[in-house]
Structures are given as structure tokens and as C-alpha cells.
């Protein structure tokens, strides 16, 4: 009698299995879009071969902000005060520039209570992947409209929204964000490419993901439901991401593909889907976004990309090393050095 040994788990380029990137079991509602995003985050870090201990996870308050518990349980993490995640992330990522930061927030945590923090995170270009799990309602408090609910969208129990929504992507682009994308939790292939590119980007990457709330906002009349998003999603392009360590060169038909390189050698590859859209042309991007809002289109893809934009740490010219590893001799300037600094201000 012969016993069959289970196959060894597939490992990534640093020898870790996918299980090494997972977290606790989700306690969200069955079918919640947030769980799909969590799975894609796990896959993205696994595929890129980033050591979990190099990652710091941040969140605020809300259903979305629970999700960092469900991925990368070997990473560092802070579940911050409601809407205050950007401050904590700013401090941590400046104190240790070797960390790969990912923040998961919701539409309430970002566009309502946290909007004051969000805008400063973006304008400073803190190197953080900022994922907004956007369902248009406050799920934890039984489904009231959030600040991203579209005009005319209805609640489960009736009642339409009259207030103009905050467009998180439009806001981020106006504030100078170098990586802005919109996706849908039901479009896993696109979301995966966007996440990998966002993790590689060396500045703030804002990803607004429409993630239906199956309990409070997945009905007829909602513009953030699975059905509505599936019926109305219009990808601006097909996205491929080639990380710097991938040496395979794919043949691509000329004229239909545009490559945008990242400083580390990775490449985002845009395949045209018939639209004339240049994600590096800010004026065109903003005009397209304005038109799509009027036409009530649900455009997805990497909306805007500027890979060379300097991060906050580079602008401040801070050290490359984590502050905790600096010795006293580097942290404490000599009496002469201090005198020279003071002299420069006289």
C-alpha cells in the first residue's frame, strides 16, 4: 500500500508559501467585497516576494479597518483612531523608511471623519499604499449614506441621497498624488495588477475599490452593488505589471501597448481597449474624470501615474536607515557641529 504525500506548497522568490502571508479568519459578512480585497492583498505581497516583517499595516475604524487582521499576520500593524490612520502611518514610515506601508480604510474613515488627514497624507506623498474599501454606506452603524454615496442612490430601507459625493480619486489627483487607481472587488485580475504596481510605487498610492456591502448596500437602487458595478464597469485599459525581478520578456503587439517604467526597473504595461487614454497626462485624466461623473460612468484602471514623483522622505532628505538603528554618535551632533548649525542661522 503506498501513501501519497501532499504536494509541497508553492513558494515565492524568497521561499515563503502563501500561507505565510495570510492572517486571521475573517469575521465580516459572507460575500463581503472586503474579503476579496484581502485575498488580493495576500496574493500581491506573495507574488512580489516581500518579507512580511518588512510590512507595516495601518487602519482606522470601520468594517474595512478590521481587515488588516486578516492578512500578513507576521507584519507590523496599528489599528488607529477613527480617521487618524494617516498620522500614525506618516510617523512610522518616516521613522523607518525600510517599511512597506499599506493602509486600509473605508469611505467613512477616509472621506468623512478622516478627510482632513487624508489630504495631507496625499500632498506629502508619504510612501503608503492607501486602499479605500468603498461601499457608500456606514456598514458598522447599520447602513447610513457615507460621503461617497452617489446622488440618487437609495438606501435599503428607502430614501435617496441628495448630497454630492466626494470623488476620492479626483481629490487625490488634484492634490498631486503620483498613483491613483479605481477598481472593483469583483474584478480580481485588474485589482491584482493595480495592487502590485501600487506596492512598488515609492509614494502615496491611492486605490479606490468599490467593495459592495452585501448587508446594507447591495440592492436595486444602489450604485455600489455587485450588479450595478458589474453592469457599469468600464475599464480604461488592461493592466499588466512586470516586476523588476521578472526576466521574461513578453512579445507585445506594437501600437497597442504602452509601458511606464518605475525607478526600480518594474514596468506597468497598459494595453489599449479602444479608448484614447494617457494615464500620465494629468489634464486629460482630470477632464476624463469630470466627464465620467456627469455621464455616471464607472471608470476603472490606473487613472493617473507619475512614478518619479519624490516622496516626502526624499524631500526632507531624511536618512535611509530606521531611526532605531542609528547609533548615538550619529544622533547626537558634536558641540562643533551644533555651533556651526547655530552660526548658520545668525
Amino acid at each position, binding site marked *: 500500500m503506498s501513501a501519497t504525500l501532499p504536494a509541497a506548497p508553492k513558494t515565492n*522568490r*524568497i*521561499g515563503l508559501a502563501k500561507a505565510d502571508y495570510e492572517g486571521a479568519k475573517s469575521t465580516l459578512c459572507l460575500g463581503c467585497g472586503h474579503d476579496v480585497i484581502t485575498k488580493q492583498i495576500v496574493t500581491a505581497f506573495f507574488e512580489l*516576494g516581500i*518579507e512580511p*516583517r*518588512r510590512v*507595516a499595516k495601518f487602519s482606522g475604524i470601520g468594517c474595512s479597518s478590521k481587515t488588516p487582521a486578516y492578512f500578513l499576520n507576521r507584519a*507590523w*500593524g*496599528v489599528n488607529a483612531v477613527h480617521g487618524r490612520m494617516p498620522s*500614525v502611518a506618516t*510617523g*512610522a514610515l518616516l*521613522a*523607518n*523608511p*525600510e*517599511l512597506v506601508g499599506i493602509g486600509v480604510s473605508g469611505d467613512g474613515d477616509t472621506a468623512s471623519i478622516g478627510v482632513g488627514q487624508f489630504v495631507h497624507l496625499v500632498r506629502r506623498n508619504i510612501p503608503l499604499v492607501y486602499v479605500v474599501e468603498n461601499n457608500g454606506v456606514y456598514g458598522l452603524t447599520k447602513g447610513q449614506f457615507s460621503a461617497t454615496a452617489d446622488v440618487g442612490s437609495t438606501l435599503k430601507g428607502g430614501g435617496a441621497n441628495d448630497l454630492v459625493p466626494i470623488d476620492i480619486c479626483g481629490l487625490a489627483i488634484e492634490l498631486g498624488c503620483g498613483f491613483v487607481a479605481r477598481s472593483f472587488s469583483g474584478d480580481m485580475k485588474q485589482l491584482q495588477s493595480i495592487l502590485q504596481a501600487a506596492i512598488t510605487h515609492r509614494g502615496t498610492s491611492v486605490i479606490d475599490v468599490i467593495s459592495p456591502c452585501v448587508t446594507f448596500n447591495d440592492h436595486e437602487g444602489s450604485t455600489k452593488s455587485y450588479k450595478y458595478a458589474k453592469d457599469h464597469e468600464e475599464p480604461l485599459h488592461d493592466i499588466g505589471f512586470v516586476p*523588476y*525581478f521578472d*526576466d521574461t520578456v513578453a512579445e507585445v503587439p506594437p501600437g497597442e501597448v504602452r509601458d511606464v517604467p518605475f*525607478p*526600480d*526597473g518594474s514596468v506597468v504595461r497598459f494595453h489599449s481597449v479602444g479608448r484614447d487614454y494617457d494615464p500620465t497626462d494629468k489634464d486629460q485624466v482630470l477632464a476624463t474624470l469630470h466627464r465620467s461623473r456627469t455621464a455616471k460612468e464607472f471608470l476603472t484602471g490606473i487613472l493617473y501615474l507619475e512614478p518619479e514623483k519624490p516622496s516626502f522622505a526624499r524631500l526632507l*532628505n531624511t536618512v*535611509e*536607515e*530606521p*531611526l*532605531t*538603528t542609528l547609533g548615538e554618535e550619529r544622533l547626537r551632533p558634536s558641540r562643533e557641529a551644533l555651533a556651526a548649525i547655530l552660526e*548658520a*542661522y*545668525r
Partner: protein
Amino acid sequence: MTRVAKSRRFQARGAAGSESAHNHRMIQSLRTLRPGIALLALGLFATGCATTAPETTLPGRNLALIDVQYPESRMSGVAMAAGEETPTARMGKSLIRELGRDGKFQVVDARGAGVRPAELGKDAAKTAALVRSAPADAYLGVRLLDCAARAITETERRGSGPTAVEVTVYLFRGECTAEMTAYDPTGKILKVLQKSGRWDSPRQERPDSGAMQSQALTNAVDNTANRIAREFKPGQAGAPAAAPETK
């Protein structure tokens, strides 16, 4: 007793008393900061103090550098003075020096063996030849990700008041990011480590020469190699020391 009454009591104690009163007021004002300090401490404890230092023990003391690569397409953007070392050549030399500093590791340069990291353990003939010519506990491959020296212009304010002047200063900022992978002789990955280094040329009131740009790049590469080398330490067990080359 109220704070005001307590404060007045301190004030009534003459010179020493007034010092105490001053201290007391300072303490009172600091108390209002306590919630902020607590949050800061929590943030630092939870993340700022997070160390990204990996498990950096390699199986032994004997290492062999087999490859340093920088995709050609990216090399074309690197400004170098005539006769200057390429970033790959510099990284190889610098890494061997830094890893071998104070006898921490014994490192041999096995780049001449012509074995790429992807071939380790897969191309049996090449691997066997490498292991024969450069027996080591771990084989190192390095990939440069983004190494360049960029021209920077900054404005400095000098002096104060009406005599203050703003001066434009020029410098070259050398930056380099490299990823080093350590393999065992069968090609199994032991460790992947990514580090960045930097070096700024002295600030000048006029643009410096291309030679200084080259120097900034070289120093940034050296700094990166130093940072990589600092992360690794040798384990107890290991293969016998690399045999000296005989001809």
C-alpha cells in the same frame, strides 16, 4: 487644594520658592500634553520601534559572490566620468570588502565562473564546477535596482534680519538600491535583502563637475554595500574555508 492656591503657596517662598513655582507651572503645562505623549509612545512602540532587521545569519563564514547585475536599459541613464567604474563593478568590489571587514566573512569573487543565480542547482555541470572552484556556505547574487546621481538645486537662507540673503546651492545626490540574494549550493534561496544607500556631494554655489557626479554615485554604491554587509553575520557551522587559488 486648587491648582491656583497651590501655585500661590509656592510663589510665596522667596527665590527658591519662585524657582519651585516655575517648575510647578512647567509640570502643570506638561500634564496637558500627557494624552498626546501617550499616543506618540504607542505609535513609536507599535511601529517606529519596529525593526526591519531580518534573520541575517548565514550558514557559515565562507561566501562567494557569483553575480552583480544591472539591466542594460537602466545603465544607459547612469552618468559616469571617463575611466570610472560601472556601478556593478563597484558594487562587487565594495561588497567583497565590506563583508570581509574585520574577518567577519571570507568572500571570494566567483563572478568569473559565469554562473548566473538562476542556474545554481539547475545547471548541474556549471554548479559542480562552481562548487569545485569556489566552495562556499552561501553564494551571493546582487541586482542593482536604481542607482544614479542626480543634480539637485536648493535654496539656502543665510544670515538673519535685513542682512539675510538667499543663496542657490548645487549638489549631486547619489542614490542606490540593491537587492542581494544568498543561495545555498543547491540554488535554494537562503535570504533576500534589499537596502538603499545615499551620498550627497558638498553643497557648492555653482554646479560641480561631472567627476563629482560620478563620485556621488560611487559613494552611494559603497554606502549600499556597507548597509547590506552590516545586516549579515556568520553562523557556527559551515564548509571548510575556501581553498586558496592554485595555478
